[in-house]
């Protein structure tokens, strides 16, 4: 695997130089490159070994306030030239958009901090196979109810990203990601249930052990066996930490510039207004070392900065790119391309405390479908989990839905556990919500 990425930077510089020669008012270009492998073992034998190697170039050109975009996987000079020409052709047809253009020069990242994101592994296919096998073995050995498997996969990837624009910005950084996941099937009588566990990290040393991933996958599958249907009722609901990120994801989407200026969000015009109870704080920390969501600059070269999104339940900041910021008469928040490491405050209690506090209700551990309407906030999704009585887990339940309006769910949030999920870019514990409609039999 080559560490010499200078030629990728040169490609971006070359594109920007050519775009100036073509008389364009502005241009931006990015090159991404990645390489890696993944191995899947199922029932103790190799199922697949895949080798990945991808590269791509994206260019956006501006003629005044008119823009055109192209992308190509061919990085040869001839392809770059014809891509630029295609982008110019497109910009003949698009129209003046007063808000369009590169980021404002003062918002661009001035230096590129090293966030410790690059930890290449040199894992061979044989090693990947061996680790996947050990992981699946420990799942299968965990309990005789583990009757079948969809396998365990070890994957390792390394990527490099370059972004440059005609304001003189040229930034680049490498990053790695390693992961191990395991999916097994538990069986009891006619009932078959599948569940999984995974671990992922920038540095292979930070992965959870093969054993723990395998055993957790087994445990999660087994505990779902003999799930029952339940009667339709209204009750409090806990979203367990591993799925609670979805709630915060919906919140972030609803305060994202694109949905705000289109007025396609139930949270338009909510800046400085109360959305959550006052114990809730949400902060973005983009420069977290080794963070899975960390980035030194965003998709348009803007410096990413630590900032508060929700303070004591009040919405303090939207999530904006330069374009959406201009549309809303605000400043970019360095979120072109999304949020980087979102931290949700906890209520200093663990999941068991939340369950006790709820007393009687539903613990949701699985969600299905896409039933979130960001325009209205209406929320209705398929769910599975556990019924709670007397502050104790009673039995698994399935084939139910949970429904409410997100606005009510946010304002009726009771507590957030300290069982923080750390395997993605949203760091949240389990979330207890006052009440939702549960539809069952």
């Amino acid at each position: 695997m080559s560490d010499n990425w200078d030629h990728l930077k040169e490609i971006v510089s070359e594109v920007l130089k050519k775009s100036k020669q073509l008389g364009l008012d502005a241009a931006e270009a990015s090159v991404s490159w990645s390489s890696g492998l993944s191995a899947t073992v199922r029932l103790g034998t190799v199922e697949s070994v895949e080798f990945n190697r991808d590269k791509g170039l994206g260019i956006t050109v501006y003629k005044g306030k008119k823009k055109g975009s192209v992308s190509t996987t061919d990085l040869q000079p001839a392809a770059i030239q014809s891509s630029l020409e295609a982008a110019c052709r497109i910009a003949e047809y698009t129209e003046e958009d007063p808000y369009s253009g590169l980021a404002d020069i003062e918002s661009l990242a001035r230096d590129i901090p090293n966030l410790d994101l690059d930890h290449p592994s040199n894992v061979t296919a044989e090693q990947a196979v061996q680790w996947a096998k050990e992981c699946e073995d420990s799942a299968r050995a965990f309990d005789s109810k583990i009757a079948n498997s969809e396998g365990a996969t070890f994957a390792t990837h390394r990527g490099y990203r370059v972004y440059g624009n005609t304001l003189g910005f040229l930034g680049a950084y490498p990053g790695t990601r390693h992961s191990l996941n395991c999916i097994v099937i538990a069986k009891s009588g006619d009932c078959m249930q599948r569940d999984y566990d995974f671990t992922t990290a920038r540095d292979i040393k930070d992965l959870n052990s093969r054993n723990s991933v395998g055993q957790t996958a087994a445990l999660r599958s087994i505990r779902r066996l003999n799930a029952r249907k339940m009667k339709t009722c209204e009750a409090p609901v806990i979203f367990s930490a591993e799925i609670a990120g979805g709630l915060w994801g919906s919140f972030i989407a609803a305060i994202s510039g694109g949905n705000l200026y289109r007025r396609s969000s139930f949270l338009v015009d909510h800046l400085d207004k109360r959305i959550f109870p006052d114990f809730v704080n949400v902060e973005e920390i983009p420069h977290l070392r080794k963070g899975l969501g960390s980035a030194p600059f965003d998709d348009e070269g803007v410096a990413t900065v630590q900032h508060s999104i929700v303070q004591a339940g009040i919405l303090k900041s939207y999530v904006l790119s330069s374009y959406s910021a201009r549309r809303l008469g605000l400043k970019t928040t360095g979120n072109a391309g999304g949020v980087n490491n979102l931290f949700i405050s906890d209520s200093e209690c663990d999941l068991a405390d939340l369950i006790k506090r709820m007393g009687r209700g539903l613990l949701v551990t699985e969600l299905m479908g896409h039933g979130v309407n960001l325009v209205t906030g209406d929320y209705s999704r398929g769910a599975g989990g556990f019924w709670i009585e007397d502050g104790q887990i009673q039995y698994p339940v399935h084939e139910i839905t949970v429904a409410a309006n997100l606005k009510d769910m946010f304002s009726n949030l009771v507590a957030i556990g300290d069982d923080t999920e750390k395997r993605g870019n949203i760091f949240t514990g389990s979330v207890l919500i006052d009440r939702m409609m549960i539809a069952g039999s």
Partner: protein
Amino acid sequence: MNLKTTNLETARHAILEPAGLSEQALQKVLGNVLGHAVDYADLYFQSSRHESWVLEDGIIKEGSYNIDYGVGVRAISGEKVGFAYSDDIILPALEEAAMAAKSITAQGGNHQVQAWHRLPETRSLYGDDDPLKSIPDGDKIALLRTLDAEARRIDSRIQRVIVSLSGLYEVVLIVASDGTFSADVRPLVRLNVSVIAEENGRREQGSQGGGGRFNYSRFLENDLGIHYAQEAVRQALVNLNAVAAPAGVMPVVLGSGWPGVLLHEAIGHGLEGDFNRKGSSTFSGRVGERVASPLCTVVDDGTLFERRGSLNVDDEGTPTQCTTLIENGILKGYLQDKLNARLMGSQSTGNGRRESYAHLTIPRMTNTYLLAGNHLPEEIIASVEQGLYAVNFGGGQVDITSGKFVFNASEAYLIEKGKITRPVKGATLIGSGPDILKHVSMVGNDLKLDTGVGVCGKDGQSVPVGVGQPTLKIEGMTVGGTER
């Protein structure tokens, strides 16, 4: 005399000639992959051009053009698959990918690749013209403007309109050690209108689109595009008046066409060969059993003319077919690619598909639908005392092991005393795949396929699909609303 260029000639011209690759070179690469432990190998060449145009806020805001090409190499040894790809189509890159794919097995002697057999291209389910060039760019822009104006003209409550148009021209060439030497030229276009209506501070959305394996000019014929705009507006206005949806089990009448996503989730995925070979599907080992009411016959048909989910040959070069999945309620068979068919002792059904050269082939659906029955849609609605009539859906999801599936209604109405009354807000419907079709009590005579918008995701790969059904009545299904 037929002067039409065959797909094979097109592929040779678009892919092999620019790379300077001869058939002998391909034969040699495949021969090197094959060893005593590798029983099958294939090369998948793909060249694609994609464009999209977006109108928003009354102006043409975005235009993009993408070029992607590459080659994937797969080596199969028993159940083991080795896979590598390259986005450079040149011999050294191809050889390197081939060696990587082969690395799943120990070294072996060279085996002979079977002589190519080129199946005559007896059918063409869609044209082979480049849709991107089918009308001038100016006409594409004009179409977007017309639809924007139409949506705004219909009702002043329409505040936002987004119209998008996209086209794909894709050429694939599949060369395999079993002698397959096959090509396909696959156009695919899509037009979508989405709107937001606003009244008294309440906002609701509506969207409609369609497409298929044809040219942009189709959207201009019979005012098809105009119809999408009208339909998007109608949906948004209906939703402005929607009340909270009910919660609990009730009779559900599903409209014809796109609600067929039910079959895709509840039945289709569970019948894909890979899950059944592994025994991980709730339908595993159940061929011959009753899984639906006798009113239900479900097929997966990749041979429908110009449909979004249709293919002349699948991504392994196997001609697509119409496969009966359920016949009068009895489970008949699975959807297979070559690997799973061989391991299960059956034949590929032409359902081996992949998102691109950079993805592994797996069994996938094409166009999945339920055949028409005898009832008039009005009769079906009139038969319901108290229930839900759902006519438009977002998407769905299934857990093929437990069989639980969901799909999300985006336009639905209450049925009260046999009459459609009030519109209700979107809600998730949840059920169990092996049970749900047993509760189908009436099947309409109005079979319709969707307008050409389906995207199916599996193992992180997206492929275009179609669904369809006539109006259906399901005696009891859980509706995930908020009202008791």
